[in-house]
C-alpha cells in the first residue's frame, strides 16, 4: 500500500501547474467509519441468526436419530409414527396445486398491470393487489374450510371430498400467494427497458407477442424469483393446511383426500402435549430440518435454472 501518502509526499505532484498547492491528503471521515460499522454489524447479525437457527434445529435432530432408526423416519408407511414421506408428498401435493393456480393467475395479473393497464388503472390496482398479500392466513384457512370445501367443491362441483382435503388447501394456498407473485413479477416486467418494447413494435409485433416473446424472457430472472418466493411461502404456510388439509397422515396422490403436510404435522406436534426433549418433540425438529433442506434445494435449483435460461438486458 503506497497510496496512503499525505499531501506533499509525492515530489512532482502537479509541479508547475496552477493548483500545485492543493491538499490531496486523506482526511479522516468518522461518520463514514461509524456507518460502515453499523451496516457491517447488521449484515453479520442476519448471518448469525440463520446459523443459530440451523444449530438449534440440528441439535435435537441428533438426539432424534439416536433413538429412532433412519428407516422409521424415511418411510412411506403412513401407519408409522415417525414416517416423513407421507408428510412430504402432502406438502408437494398442496404446493403443486397452489402453483397451478397462482402462477398463471399471478403472471397474468402482472402482465396485465405492466403491459396492458392504463396508467390510471395501474395506480389503483397495484396497491390493491399488494393489500391482498397482507390478509392473515388464518382468514384464508377459514375461507377454505367454510366456503371452498362445502360450497365450491361439494355443492357446485359435486366432488366427493371430505371435510378436509388437499384440493381445497392447495387452491386457497394458491389464492394466498397470487399477490406475492403478481406484485414481484410486475416489478420485473416494469424493469424491462422501454427500448426493447419499442424495438418489438417497430418490427410489426403486436402487444401479446411483445409481452410473451420479448418482455417475459427479458424479465425471466425476476419472474422466477417471484415464483420461487411464492413457492417458498406455499411450502412453509401452516395455518391453511392445518385447517383445510387435515391432521391425518395419509400417503396418497389423490387430492380429494385429506392429508397432513409437514407444516401441519409440526403445528400439531408443537401443540404442547409433547414434553421438551421427548422423542415426539424431537420429531418436530427432524421434520423441520427436512423442510429447511427441501426449501433450500428448491431455491438452489431455481437459481441454477434462471442462470441457465435468463436473457439479460
Amino acid at each position: 500500500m503506497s497510496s496512503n501518502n499525505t499531501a506533499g509526499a509525492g515530489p512532482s505532484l502537479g509541479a508547475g501547474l496552477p493548483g500545485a498547492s492543493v491538499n490531496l491528503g486523506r482526511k479522516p471521515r468518522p461518520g463514514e467509519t461509524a456507518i460502515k460499522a453499523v451496516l457491517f454489524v447488521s449484515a453479520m447479525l442476519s448471518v448469525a441468526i440463520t446459523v443459530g437457527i440451523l444449530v438449534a434445529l440440528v441439535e435435537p435432530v441428533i438426539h432424534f436419530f439416536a433413538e429412532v432408526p433412519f428407516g422409521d423416519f424415511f418411510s412411506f408407511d403412513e401407519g408409522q409414527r415417525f414416517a416423513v414421506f407421507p408428510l412430504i408428498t402432502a406438502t408437494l401435493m398442496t404446493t403443486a396445486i397452489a402453483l397451478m393456480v397462482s402462477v398463471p393467475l399471478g403472471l397474468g395479473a402482472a402482465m396485465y398491470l405492466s403491459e396492458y393497464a392504463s396508467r390510471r388503472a395501474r395506480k389503483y390496482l397495484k396497491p390493491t393487489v399488494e393489500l391482498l398479500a397482507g390478509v392473515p392466513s388464518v382468514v384464508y384457512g377459514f375461507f377454505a374450510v367454510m366456503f371452498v370445501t362445502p360450497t365450491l367443491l361439494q355443492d357446485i362441483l359435486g366432488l366427493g371430498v371430505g371435510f378436509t382435503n388437499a384440493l381445497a388447501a392447495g387452491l386457497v394456498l394458491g389464492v394466498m400467494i397470487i399477490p406475492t407473485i403478481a406484485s414481484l413479477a410486475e416489478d420485473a416486467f416494469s424493469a424491462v427497458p422501454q427500448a426493447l418494447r419499442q424495438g418489438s413494435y417497430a418490427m410489426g409485433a403486436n402487444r401479446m407477442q411483445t409481452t410473451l416473446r420479448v418482455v417475459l424472457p427479458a424479465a425471466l430472472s425476476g419472474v422466477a424469483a417471484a415464483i420461487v418466493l411464492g413457492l417458498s411461502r406455499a411450502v412453509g404456510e401452516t395455518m391453511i393446511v392445518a385447517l383445510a388439509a387435515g391432521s391425518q397422515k395419509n400417503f396418497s396422490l389423490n387430492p380429494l383426500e385429506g392429508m397432513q403436510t409437514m407444516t401441519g404435522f409440526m403445528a400439531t406436534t408443537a401443540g404442547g402435549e409433547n414434553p421438551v426433549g421427548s422423542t415426539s418433540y424431537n420429531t418436530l425438529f427432524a421434520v423441520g430440518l427436512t423442510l429447511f433442506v427441501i426449501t433450500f434445494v428448491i431455491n438452489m435449483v431455481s437459481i441454477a435454472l434462471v442462470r441457465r435460461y435468463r436473457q439479460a438486458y
Partner: protein
Amino acid sequence: MASATSSDTFPQMGSLGEVHVSAERRLPDAPVNPVMETRDLNVFYGDFHAVHDVNLAYGRHEITAMIGPSGCGKSTVLRCLNRMNDLVAGAHVEGEVLYHGQDIYQKNVDPIAVRTQIGMVFQKPNPFPKSIYDNIAYGPRVTGMKVDNMDDLVEEALRGAALWDEVKDKLKQSAYGLSGGQQQRLCIARTIATKPDVILMDEPCSALDPIATARVEDLMLELRNEYTIIVVTHNMQQAARVSDRTAFFTARPDETTGNRTGLLVEYDLTSTIFSNPNDKRTEDYISGRFG
C-alpha cells in the same frame, strides 16, 4: 501536450469548409411519386404543441435527412411515419401521413401492418436479449412472413447489413456480446429481414465511434438501392455525405405560452441546403452560428 487546445483536437463542426456533399445524383427538384408524405402534420403531447404544419415528401430510393436543433421535433415527426407515436401516452396527431397515397392515420388502418412496411432503427442500439439468429428471425416470425428457409433469410439480412462475416460463426450467441456498432448493424439487419419498404432511422450513429459510423453510412448508401430511407441526424457532415434531400427544422417559441413548437424551415436537395440555402436560419445553423 499542455499547449493543445480543444479546437486543435476537435475542429469546429459544421463549418462549411468541412462538408463534403456526396457524389452528385441527378434528382428532380421535388420527389416524384413520393413514397411517403406528411400534409399539415401537427403533433401534440397533451396540451403541448410539439410540431406545427409539417409538409414533406419523401422520394423513393432516396435518403432524406432531417436536421435541426435539439427539441425541434425531428424524432416526433419520424415517429409519426410508422405510428410509433401511438405508444406514447398523451400523444395526438393531426393532419395526414400518406403512404403510397393512403393516410396511415385513418381509423381502418392497422398500425401493426404499417410497421411491417415501415421499419425503424433507434438511436441507441436495442437488440433483444436473444441470440443473434433469433434477433433477425424475430420480425419474420411475429409478422407471420412466409419463409422457405429461415437460415437463408438470416444470412441474407446479415449480409445486407454488412455484418455476416463478423458474426457467421456465433449466430447462436447472445446479441449482447457484440460491440455497439455491430449491435446497431444487427438492428438494421433485423429491420431489413422483414423486407420493409421504408426504413426510418433516428440518429442511428450517435452512439457509435467514427469507424462504426462510417460503416453504417456506407450501408445506408447501399440500402438506398432497395429501400427508402429517412434519417434524423445531428451530424451535419453525415447528412451531407449520405442524404439526397435535407429537411431543416427549428423550434419557435409561442408568443403567449413560451412553448417551443417545431416547424419545418426549408426542404431541398442536400447539395442546395449545404451550398446555397434559401433561409437565413438554415444558413446560420449549417455554418454553426446557431445558438
